[in-house]
Each structure stands twice: as structure tokens, then as C-alpha cells.
């Protein structure tokens, strides 16, 4: 099992400034899943007990000289602590940027003997080489997942890629965040209604007050509705909903909301544009699925 690559400048920027800080808000521990073509950061895919989030990058968008090999069809997965990863990445990137341009930031999977231990442990190592010195940051990771576990992870990933038939797009995420911030104090459950006419309604109530927001004429992707709107309403945990809004730290350009088949989950798909254009950047994708507390009414 081998993995070795150089992080590109774009890769460092994407991970350090945008994705890892937002993924960290979702949960400190996540799976890093590497394949020949893609790198995934996955939350709660194996233990389905909260918000599932999937951040997917084409290898070219993060790495150069990408080399991976394993007996499991060149797929490697392990779990790691995102805060440690971010700390190591920040430190390595600052050294790398202050050194000469020839210096590059290498990332590789190694097995080392940790201090005060007789058992070698796996690490994800960042190595910055200069003319006179080399700086190495080791991020401890879990034992790589077994073939069966990787298979299970891949299956969950395939299931999670199943998108709702209708998605409505909100481009003013700041406004939505402000509002949800205020709603948060009022209740633990938020009701979300999405119609095929491009409406998104949010509502939270307690015994004293009901607070809601209705967004209309939103962009509709997928199935559009007739006059009846064909809406669906679900209830999700307020904590989960607010948490997935934290993905604005990854600076998405738009967020699409949709209810999964049979109202089993609320899916949020974040869209990223190619910088300086209105074209979707297909090398990066981020979406999450929130478990539904009550399917509500359709």
C-alpha cells in the first residue's frame, strides 16, 4: 500500500483556506478516501448517525505526481483528525511558501515507530525539502480500512450520490445563515419545505412563537412542478441544518436543497464556479445529507 504525491498550490489553497476549516465544523474525525482519480473527505458514511458529508476532488485539482497503489484496486481509506491535518498543512505550507519556488510540499503515507512505542503506526507525512533542511510533519491516522470496509465505504458513497429529483438553489447563503442563526435559539427541529416551483420554506416553532422564512422563485434543477408545486416537507435537526450551513466557509457560490427519495433525507449540494466565470467547477464537489426526523406531509 503506497501513496505519494505533491500538493499543488491550488490544492493547498483549497484545503487549507476553504475545505478543511469547513469540514472540521462538520466533525473532527473523517475518512480520507483515495482512489486513482479522486480524493474524498467523508463524514459519517460508515456509521450513519448524523449528517453525511462528501467532499470530492479530482486528483489533479489537489496533487501533482500522484502515485497510489494498493492491492484493493488502488484504493486506500483511513480516518484522521482534521484539526491535526489542518495544523500540519498550515505549518508545512507556510514553510513551503517562504522557501524557494523549487521547494514542493510532498504528502505521503508512512509507517513509523512513534515515541515510547514498540509498535509502528501509520502517519500521513508532509515533507518540505529545502537546499539545506527538510521539515517533516507527521499526522497520525487510523489503520487503513480493510478491503471489506473500503467496499462498504464505496457502497455508501454510491448510495449517497443519489440526488433528489428536484433541487432549488439559494445563492445568498449569508442571508440564510443570518436567519438560521436567529432561528437556532427557538427550537431543536426545523421544518423544510421544497417545491418544484422553486420555493424553499423554513420554519421553526416552540410553544410561544413560530418563525419562518419563505424564499421564492429560486433556481430549479431537475424536475419542475406544475401549478400545484409538488412540494415536499421534512423536519430535520436544527443542529444539523446549522452545521451544514457552515460549509459556506468553503466559499461555495450556490447551495441547492432537495428532499431525497421518499423524504428520507434532506440533501444540500454546494456548487462551485470556475474562478472568474459562471461555469460549474467539476473538479470539486461537496454535498451533504441530513437525516430526516419526520417525513412530514408531501
Amino acid at each position, binding site marked *: 500500500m503506497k501513496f505519494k504525491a505533491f500538493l499543488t498550490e491550488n490544492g493547498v489553497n483549497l484545503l487549507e483556506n476553504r475545505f478543511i476549516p469547513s469540514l472540521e465544523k462538520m466533525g473532527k474525525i473523517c475518512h480520507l478516501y483515495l482512489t486513482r482519480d479522486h480524493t474524498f473527505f467523508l463524514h459519517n458514511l460508515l456509521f450513519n448517525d448524523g449528517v453525511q458529508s462528501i467532499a470530492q476532488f479530482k486528483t489533479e485539482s489537489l496533487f501533482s505526481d500522484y502515485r497510489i497503489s494498493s492491492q484493493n484496486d488502488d484504493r486506500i481509506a483511513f480516518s484522521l483528525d482534521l484539526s491535526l491535518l489542518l495544523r500540519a498543512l498550515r505549518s508545512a505550507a507556510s514553510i513551503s511558501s517562504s522557501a524557494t519556488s523549487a521547494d514542493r510540499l510532498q504528502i505521503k503515507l508512512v509507517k513509523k515507530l512513534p515515541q515510547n512505542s514498540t509498535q509502528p503506526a501509520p502517519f500521513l507525512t508532509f515533507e518540505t525539502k529545502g537546499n539545506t533542511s527538510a521539515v517533516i510533519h507527521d499526522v497520525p491516522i487510523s489503520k487503513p480500512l480493510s478491503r471489506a470496509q473500503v467496499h462498504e465505504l464505496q457502497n455508501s458513497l454510491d448510495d449517497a450520490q443519489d440526488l433528489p429529483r428536484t433541487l432549488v438553489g439559494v445563492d445568498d447563503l449569508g*442571508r440564510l445563515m*443570518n*436567519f438560521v442563526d*436567529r*432561528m437556532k*435559539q427557538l427550537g431543536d427541529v426545523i421544518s423544510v419545505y421544497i417545491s418544484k416551483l422553486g420555493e424553499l420554506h423554513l420554519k421553526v416553532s416552540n*410553544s*410561544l*412563537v*413560530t*418563525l*419562518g*422564512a*419563505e*424564499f*421564492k*422563485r*429560486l433556481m430549479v434543477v431537475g424536475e419542475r412542478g406544475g401549478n400545484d408545486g409538488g412540494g415536499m416537507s421534512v423536519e430535520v435537526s436544527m443542529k444539523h441544518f446549522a452545521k451544514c450551513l457552515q460549509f459556506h466557509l468553503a466559499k461555495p457560490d450556490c447551495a441547492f436543497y432537495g428532499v431525497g427519495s421518499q423524504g428520507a433525507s434532506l440533501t444540500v449540494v454546494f456548487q462551485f464556479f470556475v474562478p472568474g466565470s459562471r461555469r460549474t467547477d467539476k473538479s470539486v464537489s461537496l454535498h451533504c445529507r441530513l437525516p430526516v426526523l419526520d417525513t412530514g406531509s408531501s
Partner: protein
Amino acid sequence: MYQHYLSFNLLRVTRSTAIASSIKAYFSLAGRNFLHSSGRQPQGPRDTVARHIGSSEIKARREMSSSAVDAASVDLACQLDNVQGIVDALSSVRWKRQQDAVLELSEHGVVLIVEESGCLQAKVYLQKEIFARYEYTAQARPRFGLSLGILVDCLNTFSVLGHSTIIELRYPGPDMQLLLRSVDSLDACMYAEIRTTIPDTISWEYNFEPAGATPLNFTVKSAAFKEAIDDLEWPGSSIRLSLQPTPPCVTLRGDGHGDLQIDFMYYVNTDLLVSFNCDRHVSYRYKYKFLSATTSNIPSSVIKDNRGSKVTVGRGGMLKVQHLVSVSRSSLSHPHIDSAGYQQPSRIVFIEFFVKPEESNDD
């Protein structure tokens, strides 16, 4: 309050069920399709009105469109264009987190009343002129209770959007709620439905009467008054307020762990003490926590404008503290007031506090 609320709801359910059946019985005679054609199901005590209005009026209502019926069915529909100003004004009488308030609606505007321990009462007068639109149709003045904290938090939700928001307030909603709705955008709308309650009877019927033929009052710069009261926090729980005509002076004195006396001398600094009316020496003690409530949450805009706060001593030592809060439209808001130092009274919210003295005049 909760008990009241529950019993109120129970009452409402039984009443509305009875009324709904009586209305159904009526319309099954008068025309089967009324409920459908009006588009409005009988709900809640609003429909008790149907009992009291004559049958000819009911027939006339049948002709009305559903929206017209809805419009006619609210006691108050008004629009606010400066939510932040109202939030400021209401926050100034919010001296604790969980606080119940009573709202009174009338043709002149809305009055919010907050009371504590029978010793402190505050009123915020939102005159109809501060609303962008004010439509009042009730016969008797509606009065209801709600949570002040929730009202302020909800209004805050509307004001954080980063641009001026126009919101509409309506009362009552289908279940006697106070309804708030943003109306400035077609594509996005925020709304809040605040449950209302039957208000607790005000345990202390304040009766502010002048202390004598000559009023006993003074007007002091708000910032200075607040600062003085803040400073009096450490000596103790009781503050003595004294007014004396010669030399004209207002004294605030706290005795407790230590003594602190603050004098506002009228002739020494007329900028600080703007006006002073007193023909005899009076002195009363007030609980510090009640006295501090009169200034502790005073909006920063009042401090910034540094208008005067008027303090009046009434019969029996009842203290009245009045503040003015400007709620000029955000688009028109300007740091300076006009050359006469005078702002349109119509865009001012009046706030009054009444504080009962601790003991009778010991002069």
C-alpha cells in the same frame, strides 16, 4: 401566565367549537356554500363576532371576497420601516431575559407595558405616526400579553438582513397570534407568529399624580443620569433622591457598604441639568435595582443624541422617568439633528418608567 394561557386556550376551543356549530347551523339555512365561498373557516374567538353582528351584516359579508373578509377581521394592520429603532426602544424596557409584556392597541398607536414586583412599571408609546401605515379597526381596545424577549428577538431577526426592511404587523392571527411579516421583497419573506396570552392583571394600578401645585421635576442629560445611577451600584441596594430649591440641586445618595453622593447643581452646570422645578425640599428612597432599570438598557442612540431625560416626583414619591428615542427612517437617518436641535416629534418613541418609593416621605 402559562396557566392563564392554557385556560385561555381551553376556553377558546370550547367557545369556537360551539360557535362553529352555530355558524354552520345558520348557514345551512341561509345558504350552504358560505363557508366555501368565503374561503375562511371559522376559527377562534374572532368568530364570536358573528354572533353579535346582525344577520344583514352577515349577508353583506357573504358578498365580500375572502381577502376582504380577512382584512376586515384583523384589529390592527400596520407597517414599520425602521425595525432597529423599535428594537432599541423596546430593549430599553427589557431589564431581564424572561419578561412578559402587555400590548394595548388603539387608534392612536401601540403601548407596551412591562411591570415588576408591583414597584416598577415601564411603558413604551409607539404612536401611529412612527408606523409607515397604521390601520386600526377594532371597536374596543385590544389588550394582550406576550413575551417581550421573543418580540424583540423576532424583530431583530428582521433587522439583521443588512438592508432596510419593511415589516407588517397584524393582530390577531387565526389563533390570536401577533403576526409579523417582511413585505419588502417578493422573492423572500420572513414571518413570525407570536403567541399571545390573556394579560395578567396589573397588580399595581399606578396613579401618577402631581405632588402639588408646582411640579417637582428636572431634566438631565441622559448620559449623565445613566452614569450617575451606574456609579451608585456599589454603595448599596437603596438610593435616596432629594430635590431642594435653595440652592437648586438634585442629590442622589447611596448608603450601604460605603456612601456615595452625587449632586447635580442647577446653576453650576446648566448643560447637565437642563431644567429644574422645585419649590420645597423632597426626599425619597428607591430600590437600586428598580432605579437602575430606568437607565440600564437605554439605547445607545439616546446616549449618543444625549437628549434630556425628564424625572418627575409625583404624589407619595412616585418617580416618573421619561426618555425619548428617535426612530427616524434608516434612509433618512442622519447624525445631526436640524439647526433648531429639534426632531420631528412624530418619529419619536416615548418611554416612561414609574418607580414606587421604598418608604413614605420621611421629611
